[in-house]
């Protein structure tokens, strides 16, 4: 047991064998020279491994010491949305040990490769972090002070803002991060609005935007309906477009536990994934042909009368129309033709799902990253609705989110079309509501924008910022082109069309990267530019505190483990300091009329930063009524973190228990108060473990489908039928959203306190700041958002009934003719967007012959997202040192490619990337697969010279997205990364 770490500084010299060594070597040979000379790209580890482990040093047998302040900080893993708890043992500010938290009801102590190696963040020896602010000057990265960086950046930003000809607030695009915690996400959303633009977005756009849109439009909330845990109550699981064993490994604890207890697991995927290896049944589908597969299943469901007729009649709108279409259009022959799955397999899936209810359909990027994804996700919803699976324990749509806080950042973070809590920018009332919550003068806020019209117009999306820079000025729907971009925790290699991104970088006036590991963006920029970029070292989530929303909508509070290392600063501090320079610091803190929403707290180096607790308590809890982010006070969340053992694993509910520190009674709470947790914290709503579950009282986490779409459509009732309401409801039939008028009509108005009445007058459940309307509705067992039907037909979408549409680059021109994509759109999220013209050009130029293989991409267990962070962790990097392409033995043999050789993968975009061949039966002969976590090579060239010194990740490789092609979803501007074309050749 090593308890003798030096108390001085942040790093212990003997903290790590390999690191100590490389430190010694560095005196004679710098890192870059070493790598060059040795010809290996593995960094410090390779140096260390040249010396025998046991020969290093002759350590004296010192007696163990337990001196120094030892603390345990409970935090949450930052690498995916499962939300695994971690106990970090910290001695004198140094993170010395990592212990599993067996009490956590989410992960029960379990970790995947990323979670089990997270302590590496705290080891500063030979760290690959960005250590201080840097500036690109004469093509070289140079160290600058924070003050100089702030001065330069703010000067340039104001210059662009004040440029009447070609500038304005809309010339800036801010890419936020799904790795920010909830508080930082909300603050960044506010920061961008105070600057005066809607041009902000984050990874959710290219992650689950299609899910959020499709699912919310179907039944109300665009989130995972239940929890990972609830799979234990399930009888069947259909994974379509999720490789959970690699992307969400710890979720498999619940999945495999369920399977052990009789739950049937089916995996449908173009690849035989590690998840498929654990399934009862594997079905190989064609990438992008999910609607035919899903409707093929539905065809058998209807044909055999397996649908839940009573449920559909009472709770679903438009299923008849869908049935008509599915029976006519998706006969087994057509299904097999389109998705390649034989009829007997489709039938077997349908039968399994029908005979094993309740069940889930589970998806991630496999469904969402398509040009047709809004239809795919809705087809999934419809299948679950037909089976009567939604709104109960053990059944529904378990939509696995990616980043640790992508759910939270979607809910309340920097989105181009909504303010926190999905209040649309297009509705003036949203601005009035949030200006009031933020304690900001609405007139001042309006003045920050270029015009009222642009204030109400959703901004550009992260998937398209390159076009915001490159597109002809008269073709875009705002005055200036984009000239400055902030990468605030975003990897460029997670975005498609890499070649064109490089062109866009050439044209930018300013790029600011705020990230602990800014390397891929930095290297790309330095490859084509001599100046114009700043890198600011941000702290990680382990170096700050705040709440984080797991995929199941549970909020968990992270304690700060260590202080920000090197010169890095927390994101909230950087936001505040930049706001000071740009002149909106007071508004940022909500300081007006003697009131201040967010206090400043002392932080690193005696500097001040906005309080995370205040941000949650006074911004988020006070404003995000629509989605119930109002009951999760910091105090309640912290009590949950301290008392994880009282929560049941299968239901997530606390049977009892009192927090020893505060006396808070946990009885009845669901773990992490999964949103919606309505009303104020004082009324103690327990959170909602399973959405739309009518078997529980609304104060017990039950509710109905949301009345979001009116009360009737073309004379047909949209509200729930008689007898359908959540348990104990005083209204036993469908009802609309609650507002002051309905409350008065029902005669419940006087149940409000006088205080509440003052706030609630003229308001709805969604903007009554007292929470009184919600409280009274729930007291009567009602759902404040109404009681309606789910929509199988979404009439406000381009395809009210989900249609199959071939990808823009399809391997099947015959199917393109039958199932063509959408028409081009002139203005879509401020930009012209092509569909049909690209598809037809591809057919005309016979791209399917030049590039006969389908290229798809996905995750590896060792890495996360763009991968700069995880590829900088030697414990992970060692496990996966090369990017690769999975090839079927036939594909490889036809091209004389052997396992392990380098190959070129070329796509219609004109790019070609160099990766190693991995020959495996796991992928079909028509498809190839490349993981997307790599960056650092550019079409065969190692970009090491373009990295800031010491901040290149240990493992670099070719980014698949350098080669991905054009293609966006017709509703949300999701990028197409899962289906394009390519050809592979021996290098």
């Amino acid at each position: 047991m090593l308890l003798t770490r030096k108390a001085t500084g942040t790093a212990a010299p003997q903290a790590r064998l390999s690191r100590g060594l490389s430190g010694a070597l560095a005196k004679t040979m710098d890192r870059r020279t070493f790598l060059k000379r040795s010809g290996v790209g593995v960094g410090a580890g390779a140096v260390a491994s040249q010396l025998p482990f046991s020969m290093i040093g002759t350590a004296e047998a010192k007696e163990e010491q337990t001196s120094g302040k030892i603390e345990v900080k409970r935090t949450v893993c930052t690498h995916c949305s499962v939300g695994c708890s971690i106990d970090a043992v910290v001695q004198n500010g140094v993170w010395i040990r990592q212990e599993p938290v067996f009490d956590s009801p989410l992960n029960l102590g379990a970790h995947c490769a990323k979670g089990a190696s997270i302590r590496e963040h705290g080891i500063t020896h030979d760290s690959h972090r960005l250590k201080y602010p840097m500036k690109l000057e004469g093509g070289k990265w140079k160290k600058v002070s924070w003050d100089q960086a702030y001065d330069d950046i703010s000067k340039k930003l104001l210059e662009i803002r004040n440029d009447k000809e070609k500038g304005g607030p809309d010339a800036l695009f801010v890419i936020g991060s799904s790795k920010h915690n909830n508080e930082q996400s909300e603050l960044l959303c506010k920061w961008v609005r105070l600057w005066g633009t809607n041009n902000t977005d984050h990874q959710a756009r290219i992650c689950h935007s299609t899910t959020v849109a499709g699912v919310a439009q179907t039944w109300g909330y665009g989130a995972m309906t239940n929890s990972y845990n609830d799979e234990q109550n399930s009888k069947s699981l259909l994974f379509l477009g999720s490789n959970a064993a690699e992307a969400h490994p710890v979720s498999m604890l619940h999945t495999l536990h369920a399977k052990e207890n009789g739950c049937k697991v089916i995996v449908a995927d173009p690849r035989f994934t590690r998840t498929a290896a654990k399934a009862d049944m594997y079905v190989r589908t064609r990438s992008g042909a999910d609607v035919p597969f899903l409707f093929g299943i539905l065809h058998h469901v209807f044909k055999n009368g397996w649908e839940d007729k009573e449920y559909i009649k009472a709770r679903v709108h438009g299923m008849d129309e869908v049935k008509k279409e599915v029976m006519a259009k998706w006969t087994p022959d057509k299904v097999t033709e389109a998705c390649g799955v034989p009829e007997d397999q489709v039938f077997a899936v349908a039968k399994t799902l029908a005979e094993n209810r309740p069940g889930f359909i589970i998806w991630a990027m496999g469904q969402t990253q398509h040009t047709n994804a809004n239809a795919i996700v809705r087809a999934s919803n419809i299948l679950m609705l037909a089976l009567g699976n939604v709104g109960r324990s053990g059944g529904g749509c378990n939509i696995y989110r990616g980043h640790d806080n992508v759910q939270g950042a979607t809910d309340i973070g920097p989105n181009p079309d909504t303010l926190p809590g999905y209040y649309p920018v297009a509705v003036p009332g949203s601005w009035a509501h949030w200006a009031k919550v933020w304690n900001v003068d609405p007139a001042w806020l309006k003045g920050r924008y270029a015009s009222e019209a642009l204030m109400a117009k959703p901004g550009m999306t992260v998937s398209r910022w390159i076009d915001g820079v490159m597109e002809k000025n008269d073709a875009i729907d705002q005055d200036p082109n984009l000239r400055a971009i902030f990468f605030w925790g975003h990897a460029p290699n997670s975005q498609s069309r890499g070649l064109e991104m490089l062109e866009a970088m050439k044209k930018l006036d300013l790029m600011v990267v705020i990230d602990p590991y800014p390397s891929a963006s930095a290297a790309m920029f330095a490859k084509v530019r001599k100046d114009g970029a700043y890198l600011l070292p941000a702290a990680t989530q382990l170096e700050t505190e705040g709440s984080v929303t797991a995929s199941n909508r549970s909020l968990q509070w992270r304690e700060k483990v260590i202080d920000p290392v090197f010169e890095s600063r927390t994101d909230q501090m950087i936001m505040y300091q930049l706001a000071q320079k740009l002149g909106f610091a007071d508004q940022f803190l909500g300081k007006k009329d003697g009131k201040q929403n967010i206090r400043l707290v002392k932080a690193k180096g005696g500097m001040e930063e906005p309080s995370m607790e205040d941000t949650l308590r006074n911004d988020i809890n006070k404003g995000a009524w629509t989605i119930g982010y109002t009951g999760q006070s910091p105090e309640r969340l912290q009590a949950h973190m301290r008392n994880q053992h009282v929560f049941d694993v299968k239901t997530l509910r606390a049977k009892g228990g009192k927090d020893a520190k505060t006396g808070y009674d946990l009885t009845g709470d669901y773990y992490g108060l999964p949103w919606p947790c309505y009303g104020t914290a004082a009324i103690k709503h327990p959170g909602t473990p399973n959405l739309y579950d009518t078997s529980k009282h609304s104060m017990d986490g039950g509710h109905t489908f949301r009345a979001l779409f009116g009360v009737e459509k073309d004379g047909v009732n949209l509200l729930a039928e008689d007898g359908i309401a959540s348990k104990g409801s005083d209204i036993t039939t469908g009802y609309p959203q609650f507002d002051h008028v309905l409350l008065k009509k029902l005669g419940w108005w006087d149940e409000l306190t006088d205080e509440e009445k003052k706030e609630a007058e003229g308001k709805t459940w969604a903007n009554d700041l007292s929470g009184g309307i919600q409280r009274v509705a729930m007291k009567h067992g009602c759902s404040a958002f109404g009681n309606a039907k789910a929509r199988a037909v979404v009439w406000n979408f381009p395809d009210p009934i989900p249609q199959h549409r071939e990808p823009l680059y399809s391997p099947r021109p015959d199917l393109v003719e039958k199932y063509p994509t959408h028409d081009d759109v002139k203005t879509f999220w401020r930009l012209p967007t092509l569909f049909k013209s690209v598809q037809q050009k591809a057919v005309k130029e016979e791209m399917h012959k030049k590039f006969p293989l389908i290229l798809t991409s996905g995750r590896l267990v060792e890495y996360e997202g763009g991968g700069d962070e995880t590829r900088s962790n030697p414990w992970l990097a060692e496990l996966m040192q090369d990017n690769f392409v999975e090839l079927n033995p036939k594909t490889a043999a036809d091209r004389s490619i052997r396992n392990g050789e380098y190959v070129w993968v070329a796509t219609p975009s004109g790019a070609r990337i160099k990766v190693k061949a991995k020959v495996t039966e796991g992928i079909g002969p028509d498809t190839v697969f490349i993981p997307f976590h790599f960056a650092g090579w550019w079409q065969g060239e190692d970009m090491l010279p373009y990295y800031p010194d010491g901040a290149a990740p240990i493992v670099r490789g070719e980014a698949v997205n350098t080669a991905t092609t054009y293609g966006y979803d017709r509703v949300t501007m999701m990028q197409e990364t899962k289906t394009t074309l390519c050809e592979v050749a021996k290098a």
Partner: protein
Amino acid sequence: MRLALRLALLLAAVLALVACSEKEQVAEFKRGKYQGKPDNQSWANDPLPAEFRGGTWAKGDRTAWEEQIKKRQLAQHEYRRIYQ
């Protein structure tokens, strides 16, 4: 044929008896053979402070140490956590 069977049965019986007298299959550690430095037992230590999330036992009390190791091991058994 019969003889062969009889012999086989006899052999089987003898073998069965042999099995009965078999000593424990675990090879005992012969202290004399090991040439290296001595090591002490896990339980011959004081428990660490609670912050390290370890077990508690009285120094040298092997039974107590084993008991708490067994208890901790149940953390690897999710059924215990689920149906607690």
